[in-house]
């Protein structure tokens, strides 16, 4: 779908000219494409490939930095459902670990990493905090219509309906039973993504759309075990969003070559000779649209609010850490306040970016936040709209589309105060990326 608002402030005449050009280009580029059922990624329909861009874990069980009583523990609950009421489905999932480590990690068969960090200030003198990018996968089978849920910190050793699991068991033959183990997130603390693809018994992606899911990030005060009295006042926050789904083109014939990528829209330019689409899915959004309150705003519902934005590339090479870890997309942001005044900024998304809005143009931490174009003091209005699109930076064979979710934090008193409540929501989107994006899966032995 080509929309009028893809013109970024053009006049009416140029809107028409641009529309004509884009429409004709779109037609020409799509002349040989297969039809798809949704015109870009969607978080409100079941899909064949689903992404949870924001998974956060920091619990009392962390081997390196356990949360102590009185501290705030965080975990993410993931709900997945097979919407196929008639048949079981197989699902391959990947944790994408975007933790940063002091001094980074070594490569090679035995991988060692420094301690987990947020900024270089967390590291010993002489070591910098380096963002990583590692994947860890698991495979499961869900019975017809089966809903499951698990926390990222714990995973699930055996699924309900697994013949070895406790419980009443499920109808159907042994081949129809659930199976597999859901690995826990690879580190604690953890920050990153979860991606799941509907596959067949040979792990090849299938042209079907039966996965839906939600993620809920829950934080709560760690209370000491009785008889120690509870630490009061405690806080609990919860923020939920829907997994972002890419609907598979059900008329497409998969190549079933595991080295071929999942194509989002089409195969991006620059792919190696002989590479084709293993499976075709709906394309990445052209523009992400975030409605937000400016950081530091005191809204009518109370508290002082700031917004965290998570951006991740649509394209990834899940089996090639180096290729994906060095993959950088430049995100261009247009910001409008309630006076219709426009500002712009840009930000690098190096495989994964989770940031407060004010830190996009002022650097990490509270220093300088009052001077950010995302600050309520600078903008002068409570609400704003930010339009985000990836503009460049993809290596050959990968596209530069972006996905994201947003999370609002409501603080007591000021932005330095404790977080009293939190909420998350899916970003809106406009148009789709004609150039296509690619997700190369890990080739399993």
């Amino acid at each position: 779908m080509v929309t009028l608002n893809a013109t970024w402030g053009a006049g009416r005449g140029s809107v028409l000219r641009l529309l004509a050009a884009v429409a004709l280009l779109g037609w020409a580029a799509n002349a040989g494409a297969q039809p798809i059922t949704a015109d870009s990624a969607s978080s409100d329909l079941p899909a064949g490939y689903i992404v949870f861009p924001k998974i956060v874990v920091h619990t009392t069980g962390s081997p390196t930095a356990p949360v102590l009583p009185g501290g705030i523990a965080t975990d993410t609950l993931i709900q997945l459902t097979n919407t196929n009421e008639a048949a079981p489905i197989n699902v391959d999932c990947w944790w994408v670990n975007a933790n940063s480590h002091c001094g980074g990690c070594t490569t090679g068969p035995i991988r060692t990493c420094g301690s987990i960090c947020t900024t270089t200030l967390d590291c010993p003198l002489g070591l910098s905090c380096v963002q990583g990018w590692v994947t860890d996968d698991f495979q499961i089978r869900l019975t017809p219509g089966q809903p499951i849920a698990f926390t990222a910190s714990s995973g699930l050793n055996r699924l309900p309906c697994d013949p070895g699991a406790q419980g009443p068991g499920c109808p159907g033959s042994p081949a129809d039973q659930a199976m597999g183990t859901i690995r826990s997130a690879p580190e604690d603390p953890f920050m990153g993504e979860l991606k799941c693809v509907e596959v067949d018994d040979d792990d090849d992606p299938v042209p079907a759309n039966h996965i839906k899911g939600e993620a809920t990030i829950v934080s709560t005060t760690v209370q000491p075990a009785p008889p120690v009295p509870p630490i009061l006042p405690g806080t609990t926050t919860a923020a939920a969003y829907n997994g972002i789904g890419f609907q598979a083109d059900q008329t497409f014939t998969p190549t079933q070559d595991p080295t071929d990528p999942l194509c989002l829209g089409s195969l991006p330019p620059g792919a190696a000779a002989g590479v084709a689409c293993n499976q075709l899915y709906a394309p990445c959004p052209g523009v992400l649209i975030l409605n937000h309150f400016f950081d530091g705003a005191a809204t009518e519902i109370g508290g002082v609010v700031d917004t965290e934005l998570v951006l991740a590339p649509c394209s990834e090479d899940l089996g090639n850490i180096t290729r994906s870890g060095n993959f950088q997309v430049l995100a261009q942001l247009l910001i409008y306040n309630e006076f219709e005044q426009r500002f712009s900024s840009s930000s690098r998304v190096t495989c994964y970016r989770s940031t407060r809005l004010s830190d996009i143009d002022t650097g990490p931490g509270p220093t300088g936040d009052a001077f950010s174009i995302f600050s309520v003091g600078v903008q002068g209005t409570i609400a704003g709209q930010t339009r985000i699109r990836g503009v460049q930076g993809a290596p050959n064979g990968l596209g530069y589309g972006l996905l994201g979710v947003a999370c609002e934090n409501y603080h007591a008193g000021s932005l330095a105060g404790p977080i009293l409540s939190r909420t998350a929501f899916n970003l809106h989107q406009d148009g789709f990326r004609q150039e296509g994006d690619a997700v190369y899966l890990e080739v399993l032995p």
Partner: protein
Amino acid sequence: MSTVKGLRAGRIALVLIGMTLTAATVGAEERFTTERPSTVLLFPKVVNTSDTIIQITNTTNLLVNVHCFYVNGQDVGGAPIWQITDFDLVLTRQQPTHWSVRNGRGVNPNDSETGLDPGLVPPVVPGFTGFLACVEVMPSGEPSGANSLKGEATIGEVTTLGAPGNHVSKYNAIGIQACGQGGCGGGGQPVNDDNILELNNVEFAACPGGLLLNFAAENSEDVAIGPTNPPSVVSTNLTLIPCGLDLENLVPASTLQTINLRNEFESPGSVSQVPVDCWFSRDLGDPLFGNEMTIGGLQTFFGSGIIRPAAPGQVPVLGVANVLHMAGDGSSDTAATNLHFCNEPLAPSGCNQVNSEIRLPSLP
């Protein structure tokens, strides 16, 4: 025809041809959506028991006019009062705006609400529980089909550390996209200028055949809190409105729904004849659901459900889920999610799209 006009007409024709061909080849699907700009926005849960902040944005570079309707579904004497209050907004290009439903928003450049005031937004009455519908219109009042609007609702209240009611949840407005020429799978036509918005995949997208709900069993332990802050509990509030409105004759929309359930062991269950009368908001432990979705009835921590019309002729519903997470120390928060749409017509899902309409008040 002048040369300039001729060139312009030719250019527009070129655009239309290009757009039609593009739509046909990529299969553009104007539909009910929670993430794409639309012509109609529905905010199913708007309350003044705590406050609700509405955010609406014009995502285009053209000025748009919007006609909004608060519908009060407050229960008085066992029936919704179905009171409607309407107002108009004007949004300049790309303009975001917001207001609190408790306070409304005046047109006063000197008040504390900075930014271009979009129009006079009245406050709702104390105790208001209902929904908000906003329709993009032409300056003269007829419906437009430009799909320019997006919106969010933020429900809750934040006071001080340790206070019991620090709850904020947010969901995206449900958008109904106008089909446009060749849209909605190919059969779309431009929006006509009458006061009836036909949800039929010709003028506007047809209603989804059902809703998909993932839920935690009512009153079960919150597994994400678990032993960290025991004992915890989780409770889900489900808000539903009928897919279709008669704002001209003030006829409260009413429909019956069936919820087919599965627990984690694939065991089926169902709740039949759920009446959605104007505005429906119940916890999953409500007696209406017959204990089917509580931890005692479901017998697993999580379940899924498909909400569909109970019989042919009944319209489907639209809705959001708002989940309360409460920890052992008494602290709690809520988290809202938009429900997924079910459009799979094949059995056993059987989610067939349904035609309906939104009837606006006639223009004088």
